[in-house]
């Protein structure tokens, strides 16, 4: 399509700002613009509309604020400090600190954290400050307890290393237990789906190729005015998961748009309101700003798989997610948004109003964000022992239609406690332990099929040992069959095998 990235072929920033000054700029919220473009085509819509406003209000863990407390008498080089019992980062100069959203209160963990401290400060509420120091010749004070409000601080600057994901994966759970995650509570057996991001209103999705969004872009941040200071951490434009690093003056923000939050058994975070005004400077921008919820897709990942590469259950559009129900494996499943669509719409509308009233002017970025970075995983270089190094391969198996006596004999002859039950192709269908045999005897059950455990917890040969140990703990079991990708039994790993291996080596993984 049209020329260089960021080319101002439809209208320039100066033209738009002149219209704002004159009071005849045409601004639509992104959902209204998408509707208009749907009716009349994006080309015609973009002739009339100068600016499209967006918004999102979601949990953004990589958020926090730099605070400068000012000096006490006598002065102090704070070595460690706490705000309402939440530790703040003190690896900075004497009275500078960074309070991060996910830091948790030492007295009320999981309930109150850095996000709440930020909300309390913005709301003008008193916050308890406690600090320790080792004392130096220039900074003699060693302890401090006082209360502060945001008005006492020299600076209170929100600096968020990663905000406003272009889109995010949706989440579900295939396991048999409730999972508590940063994607909220996930019910067992694909019982629900949660998602984040505002779809049609998503700031970064509406300028998909990041042609107007860059360093120096003025934005709505937490109810005040903020700026983009660069790409966010984990910025991954190649798969539509770009992010932003932003800053803004906390003292000019509004607690309605910065809310401390906590996810049950996960931890604390901060809901951040971000809104970006996208000037329709060229056809690329005019076209992507018109994308509807129907055009924006994401994957539903299975958070039941405790791996960084969780499998996708299916692709889904934001339109389907926002409908409240989607189909997984022929079953209709309820969907929860985690970011507030209501607040996202409110933010886009406020930004529209600011521009129409001449309070907010658009800024041309000094530099566009990179559009070619990738998000790399962290490879663990230290060698981790794997199941293949510990498992036993020469283990007997049994078929479900065989009798109890043969099972007992196999256990005794091989001196083992776990006997995998397989079908005609060697695929795992159950497991029988010596305890199961004892119970069968006690209650007079004679068929293997009746006494075997059918939902078997398994391991794979490349799985790290610590992951198997975690499963043994969680499910209170002492042995797991090792299976290949076709669920065929290739071995067995037991707690005994693991302790024997590491007892002789003299080290525990």
């Amino acid at each position, binding site marked *: 399509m049209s020329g260089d990235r960021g080319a101002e072929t439809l209208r320039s920033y100066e033209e738009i700002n002149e219209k704002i000054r004159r009071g005849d700029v045409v601004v639509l919220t992104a959902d209204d613009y998408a509707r208009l473009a749907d009716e009349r085509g994006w080309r015609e819509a973009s002739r009339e509309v100068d600016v499209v406003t967006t918004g999102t*209000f979601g949990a953004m863990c990589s958020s926090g604020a730099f605070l400068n407390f000012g000096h006490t008498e006598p002065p102090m080089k704070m070595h460690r400090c706490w705000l309402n019992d939440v530790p703040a980062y003190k690896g900075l100069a004497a009275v500078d600190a960074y309070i991060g959203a996910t830091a948790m209160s030492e007295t009320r963990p999981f309930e109150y954290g850095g996000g709440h401290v930020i909300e309390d400060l913005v709301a003008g509420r008193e916050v308890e400050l406690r600090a320790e120091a080792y004392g130096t010749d220039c900074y003699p004070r060693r302890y401090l307890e006082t209360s502060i409000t945001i008005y006492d601080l020299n600076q209170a600057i929100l600096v968020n290393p990663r905000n406003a994901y272009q889109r995010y994966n949706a989440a579900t759970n295939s396991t048999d237990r409730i999972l508590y995650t940063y994607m909220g509570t996930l019910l067992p057996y694909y019982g629900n789906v949660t998602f984040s991001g505002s779809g049609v209103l998503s700031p970064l999705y509406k300028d998909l190729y990041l042609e107007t969004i860059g360093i120096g872009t003025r934005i709505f941040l937490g109810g005040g005015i903020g700026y983009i200071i660069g790409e966010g951490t984990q910025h991954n434009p190649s798969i539509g998961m770009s992010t932003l690093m932003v800053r803004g003056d906390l003292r000019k923000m509004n607690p309605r748009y910065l*809310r401390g939050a906590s996810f049950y058994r996960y931890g604390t975070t901060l809901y951040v309101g971000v809104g970006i005004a996208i000037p329709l400077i060229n056809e690329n921008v005019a076209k992507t700003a018109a994308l509807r919820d129907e055009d924006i897709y994401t994957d539903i990942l299975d958070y039941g798989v405790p791996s960084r590469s969780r499998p996708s259950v299916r692709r889904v559009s934001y339109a389907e997610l926002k409908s409240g129900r989607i189909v997984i494996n022929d079953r209709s499943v309820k969907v929860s948004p*985690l970011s507030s669509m*209501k*607040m996202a719409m409110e933010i886009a509308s406020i930004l529209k109003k600011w521009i129409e009233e001449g309070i907010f002017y658009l800024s041309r970025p000094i530099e566009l964000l990179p559009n070619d970075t990738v998000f790399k995983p962290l490879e663990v270089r230290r060698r981790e022992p794997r199941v293949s190094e510990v498992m036993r391969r020469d283990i007997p198996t049994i078929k479900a239609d065989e009798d109890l006596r043969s099972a007992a004999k196999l256990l005794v002859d091989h001196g083992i406690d776990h006997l995998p039950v397989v079908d005609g192709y060697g695929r795992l269908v159950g497991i029988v332990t010596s305890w199961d045999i004892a119970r069968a005897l006690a209650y007079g059950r004679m068929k293997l099929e009746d006494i075997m455990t059918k939902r078997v917890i398994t391991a794979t040969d490349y799985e790290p040992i610590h992951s198997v140990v975690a499963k043994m703990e969680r499910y209170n079991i002492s042995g797991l069959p090792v299976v290949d990708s076709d669920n065929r039994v290739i071995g067995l790993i037991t707690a005994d095998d693991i302790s024997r291996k590491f007892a002789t080596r003299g080290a525990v993984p």
Partner: protein
Amino acid sequence: MRFKLTFPKELADKPVFSEAILRFHKPFNIIEADVDAEKGIIVASVDLSESDLKDFIRFFEERGVRVELLAKLLEVDLERCISCGACVSLCPVEAITIAKDWSVVFDEERCVACGLCVNACPTHALKLSIR
């Protein structure tokens, strides 16, 4: 109508609740039951006419059971609620829904006090009044 019954431990071996079912000939829906060595608590709902309601309360009080009528099971702090919707997909009875304008709407009448939404609320805006 929803109510909470508190049984003293002297009634531990008396089938008071079953007697009430036989006496009033109404289907009761038990929402929560919690029995320990000291006392028993039953939260339940039933449709009763005005006159039956008086008899109903008297029936239990005569037997030493405390009766509390419950207006709502779920308390929502609308100041804290940000209408995110984290709770919506957890509700087993459609007591929480999202309106056209994306507000999260609570129908306390339908709530069965399962409590899933309470823990899942990121802003601690929800509370069960019976706990």
